[in-house]
């Protein structure tokens, strides 16, 4: 699993898909910040003025991180930014669902007017619910795979991860002991 996700082709595909999704998702919000601010406000996670700040800044972070993923620059950091956003989105959606707030249009991708109840996309896809959470968990898994956080299966595929972690653990232990106890190989 880890080896598969770390493969260059898989990484390229994940990078382009995730980057394109976030760039696409940012455009509508950038075009109409006030409409997006209303949606953020409806989530009732932050108050009116912070909602405006989120509405103004968030889409540009999405756009920038998505564009970096597509061109392949700073890809780990860009993927980590997207992973952070997704964690926030999932937590916010959980909060909205737990409080029973009805958000007709989650404002995640499109801000198309809520006015006419159209057949597509259906309400369960547009609103804040399990579909949204599941989608974001899948996207989060893709983002983490790009960052380099891999599921550890059976220890056999634990490549650099565990080994370097143990190593850094030893090192930090040594440095706590003071400079005089530095292992000879670190000089």
């Amino acid at each position, binding site marked *: 699993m880890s080896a598969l996700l770390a493969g260059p082709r898989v990484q390229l595909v994940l990078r382009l898909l995730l980057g394109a999704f976030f760039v696409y998702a940012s455009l509508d919000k950038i075009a109409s910040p006030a409409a997006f601010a209303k949606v953020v406000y409806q989530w009732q996670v932050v108050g009116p003025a912070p909602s405006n700040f989120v509405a103004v800044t968030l889409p*540009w972070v999405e756009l920038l991180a998505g564009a970096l993923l597509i061109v392949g620059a700073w890809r780990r950091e860009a993927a980590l930014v997207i992973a952070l956003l997704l964690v926030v989105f999932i937590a916010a959606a959980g909060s909205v669902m737990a409080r029973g707030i009805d958000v007709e249009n989650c404002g995640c991708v499109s801000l198309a007017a809520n006015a006419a109840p159209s057949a597509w996309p259906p309400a369960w896809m547009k609103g804040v619910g399990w579909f949204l959470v599941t989608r974001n968990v899948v996207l989060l898994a893709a983002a983490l795979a790009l960052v380099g956080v891999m599921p550890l299966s059976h220890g056999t595929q634990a490549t650099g991860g565990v080994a370097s972690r143990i190593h850094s653990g030893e090192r930090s232990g040594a440095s706590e002991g003071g400079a005089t106890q530095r292992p000879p190989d670190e000089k």
Partner: protein
Amino acid sequence: MLLFLDMAVDWKRFILILVAGASLGLAWNAGSGRGMALGQSVLVQAGDELVAVRAGKVLLDQGALFLDARPRDFWRMSRIPGALPLPEEDFERAFQEAEPRLRRASAVVVYCSGYGCEASHLVARKLRERGFAAAILDEGLPAWQDAGLPLDEEPRP
């Protein structure tokens, strides 16, 4: 946490993406012409008059007319005492019902379900177009309830 410390991530770049993105957003908001005032609720427009719930209670005690801009079914379940239904989606019909009371009212306050609810703002503007000054209850019914102010919960047909 160890997992995170272990990642080959340049944290300066990580922070830079966040800061640069936020800065671009603020610059776009300031310079693009599509921007908005950041300091106040996006629902508030020029001419809107807001009234806080405590001041709203004083107005209620003085005999102000309260109007419920939520869908009528919500009004049927519970309402601020004495409030008439004036749902935004059924404005014309409900307005005709409420008009005689509006003409007699000393003051008018419109409310809806708070937070991102825009209905009270829209109804107040429609009333203003028809020559009736109406204040908007800031943060709506949730703030009213949070302040421990009375609610009429007798079901209406």
